């Protein structure tokens, strides 16, 4: 069909990427050992070359997808002529081979960027070498183990199209890309940590140089998890967003350890403590991304018998073991340099609270890991098949989350080294009072149950803490100067980006806590049978099934119902819950329709097939109060992270100055 053979072109680009990455690894290592500037520079350029080769491979794949070149195996297996253009574009990550290609491409982008912008110093050659080593794996897997560019013969005329669950919602274009950007972003601090160990410079230099990368990776991971929650809410049809499913868990574990890491690096920056701890944390984070991919891509989790299902699982397991062995071995060899000589001055201090928070985050990680792996352990020991349900994860993690929330209110108020008792007690009294008022008010309004009340109290506690933080920063400045409160606040927020960004992010977590509280404690989930033309009263709403609903296009058929949602005689919305079937796929996808409001969502899903003979429809109706706050909180967290990352005025003017100098020089 096409005049250019895209398959061989893509394969060649991938092999070229592996070759460049190998050069980055070998040349970089030799150059770093011999301190050979020419070798080091050429290995540095290998990063850019690898990125170009990977970009070429991705571009070839996109061209093949967009031009329906079914001679390329990945296109034949996942694409379809009648799919809309956006679906074809995102089909790149609709299946395993393509998503590994995407992962390798994004990694090469970070590596190339790092090799261009990383400050010249003793860490750089080794950090880039480690990046190259990781890239060898992530280019090698798509090039050799899961080749997406294999030739298909005879060339089919059409393919099945991507998994219907994926083409059913545009979020699928966003969520995986965010997830990989997060995973890949956290590779950079890992590479620097290894460089710090190799060069015997385990001070805070490596984390200062990767502060931004770490925050970027963490921010993407956060956004990816919240986006994934929203995707499952919009698509999966049970009206929830998190099921403690293994695939969710393995993306959550690196987030937990990365969250511990972005907090504990501050202790090393300020107090020169926790060197080994930080090195181990970032190693754990990076390893967990590999372990997670191994667990979910090899079929190990659902059943031990599927072990070795495809070459990807063993490859990731091997790489995981290599990474663990090398990094732990390095930490052990450098133990004399990385162990802490300083001691905690006082547990009631910023560093004390961060340490306690770290313990909590690790305990959470362990809980999630245990719950995810426990079915494997039980089956290995007793041969019995078990699943660990959401009740385990809720019961084991909720107390820890409560402690995290409590600590989140206290930590930022504590000064480094030692807290003056008087001001601390005054602050705690305020926070406790607001927390009690919040919980008491909720109780008076009818809230029962210890976790909902405790969460409400802790949200009040944290809001008081944030207020005290801002007052503590603003009031003295207003007192001494002549500036107005607004001016002071603005300049404080402007000059302390990192601190203010963290306040915004913490506030986002509170907003999410409100959403989780409302939507899990007060969720109503029922099936309703409503006659066509009839009305059912439900939870203060009137649901009227106006008619059946049907829509047909080349690519999909939707069958469902037109439902009016009214409250006290006023029509709030007309929703079209439906079941979509996609051309080329036997699986049908229930597609819920949601009325979003700030206080409650009305979520309708077709529970039983709508047929012309049947004079009624069965709807699954879910009311989740405050669930929108979760998505809102995710946006606030992303904004807060972005704010903390935005260059300060000083940095901006510095780059501006250098640019001006640059133009002056020419």
């Amino acid at each position, binding site marked *: 069909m096409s005049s250019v053979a895209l398959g061989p072109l893509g394969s060649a680009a991938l092999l070229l990427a592996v070759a460049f990455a190998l050069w980055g690894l070998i040349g970089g290592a030799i150059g770093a050992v011999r301190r050979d500037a020419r070798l080091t520079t050429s290995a540095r350029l290998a990063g850019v070359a690898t990125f170009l080769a990977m970009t070429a491979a991705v571009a070839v794949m996109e061209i093949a997808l967009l031009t329906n070149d079914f001679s390329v195996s990945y296109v034949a297996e996942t694409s379809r002529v009648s799919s809309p253009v956006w679906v074809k574009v995102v089909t790149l990550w609709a299946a395993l081979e393509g998503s590994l290609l995407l992962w390798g491409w994004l990694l090469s982008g970070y590596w190339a960027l790092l090799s261009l912008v990383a400050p010249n110093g003793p860490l750089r050659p080794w950090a880039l070498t480690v990046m190259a080593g990781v890239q060898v794996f992530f280019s090698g897997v798509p090039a050799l183990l899961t080749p997406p560019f294999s030739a298909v013969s005879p060339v089919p005329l059409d393919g099945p199209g991507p998994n219907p669950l994926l083409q059913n919602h545009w979020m699928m274009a966003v969520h995986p890309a965010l997830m990989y950007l997060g995973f890949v972003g956290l590779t950079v601090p890992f590479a620097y940590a290894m460089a710090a160990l190799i060069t015997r410079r385990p001070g805070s230099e490596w984390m200062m140089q990767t502060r931004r990368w770490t925050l970027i990776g963490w921010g993407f991971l956060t956004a990816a998890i919240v986006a994934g929650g929203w995707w499952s809410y919009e698509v999966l049809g049970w009206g929830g967003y998190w099921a403690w499913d293994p695939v969710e868990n393995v993306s959550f574990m690196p987030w937990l350890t990365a969250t511990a890491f972005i907090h504990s690096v501050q202790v090393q920056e300020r107090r020169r403590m926790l060197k080994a701890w930080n090195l181990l944390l970032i190693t754990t984070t990076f390893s967990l991304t590999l372990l997670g991919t191994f667990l979910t891509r090899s079929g190990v989790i659902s059943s031990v018998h599927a072990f070795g299902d495809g070459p990807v699982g063993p490859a990731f397991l091997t790489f995981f073991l290599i990474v663990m062995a090398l990094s732990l071995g390095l930490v052990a060899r450098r133990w004399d340099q990385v162990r802490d000589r300083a001691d905690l001055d006082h*547990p009631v201090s910023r560093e004390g609270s961060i340490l306690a928070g770290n*313990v909590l985050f690790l305990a959470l990680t362990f809980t999630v890991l*245990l719950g995810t792996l426990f079915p494997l352990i039980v089956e290995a020991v007793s041969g019995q*098949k078990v699943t660990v349900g959401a*009740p385990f994860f809720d019961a*084991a993690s909720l107390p820890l989350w409560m402690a995290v929330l409590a600590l989140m209110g206290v930590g930022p108020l504590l000064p480094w080294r030692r807290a003056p008792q008087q001001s601390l007690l005054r602050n705690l009294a305020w926070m406790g009072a607001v927390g009690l008022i919040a919980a008491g008010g909720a109780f008076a309004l009818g809230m029962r149950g210890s976790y909902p009340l405790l969460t409400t109290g802790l949200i009040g506690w944290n809001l008081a803490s944030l207020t005290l933080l801002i007052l503590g920063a603003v009031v003295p400045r207003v007192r001494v100067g002549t500036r107005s409160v607004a001016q002071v606040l603005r300049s404080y927020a402007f000059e302390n980006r990192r601190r203010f960004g963290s306040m915004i992010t913490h506030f986002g977590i509170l907003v999410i806590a409100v959403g989780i509280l409302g939507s899990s404690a007060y969720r109503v989930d029922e*099936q309703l049978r409503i006659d066509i033309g009839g009305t059912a009263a439900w939870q203060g709403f009137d649901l009227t099934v106006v008619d059946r609903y049907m829509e047909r296009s080349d690519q999909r058929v939707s069958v469902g119902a037109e439902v009016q949602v009214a409250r006290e005689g006023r029509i709030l919305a007309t929703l079209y819950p439906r079941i979509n079937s996609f051309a080329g796929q036997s699986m049908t996808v229930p597609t819920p329709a949601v009325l979003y409001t700030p206080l409650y969502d009305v979520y309708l899903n077709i529970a*039983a097939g709508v047929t012309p003979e049947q004079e009624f429809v069965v709807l699954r109706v879910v009311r989740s109060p405050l669930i929108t706050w979760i998505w809102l909180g995710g946006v606030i967290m992303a904004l807060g992270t972005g704010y903390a990352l935005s260059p300060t005025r000083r940095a901006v003017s510095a780059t501006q100055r250098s640019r001006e100098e640059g133009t002056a020089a020419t």
Partner: protein
Amino acid sequence: MRRWIYALLGIGVLALAGVLIQRALTDSLVYFILPSEYAADPGAYAERRIRLGGIVLNDSVAFDDERLELAFFVTDSLQTYPVRHTGTPPELFRENTGVVVEGRFEEGVFVSDNLLVKHSEVYQAEDGHPIDIEELKDSLQ
């Protein structure tokens, strides 16, 4: 000295977490069994949430579309139990198809709140010969 206090505190937190985790785990393990495994030891699964796998017995399905209640028998060819499920049957639900229901036994009836259709390759033999239990279990998992 202080170091020891922190170490002890840390161990205390970990021990507490361990206890919480252990209790939560034993309470929320959901065993996946077949009807004959239940019949062998009903006491072990009394008052417990389990996942029961099997094949929908021919001519046993009844759906009350007024009350949205589904009733059928699930079998592994050795044992058969009645299942009551609240809600509509899933689209691919058929007789002689593999299913996994989640819930608990109440007075000899399995009351399910979650019904999954599994495309088991092991179908009930037409002439009533017992089927390979292990194979059935693997195919339903």
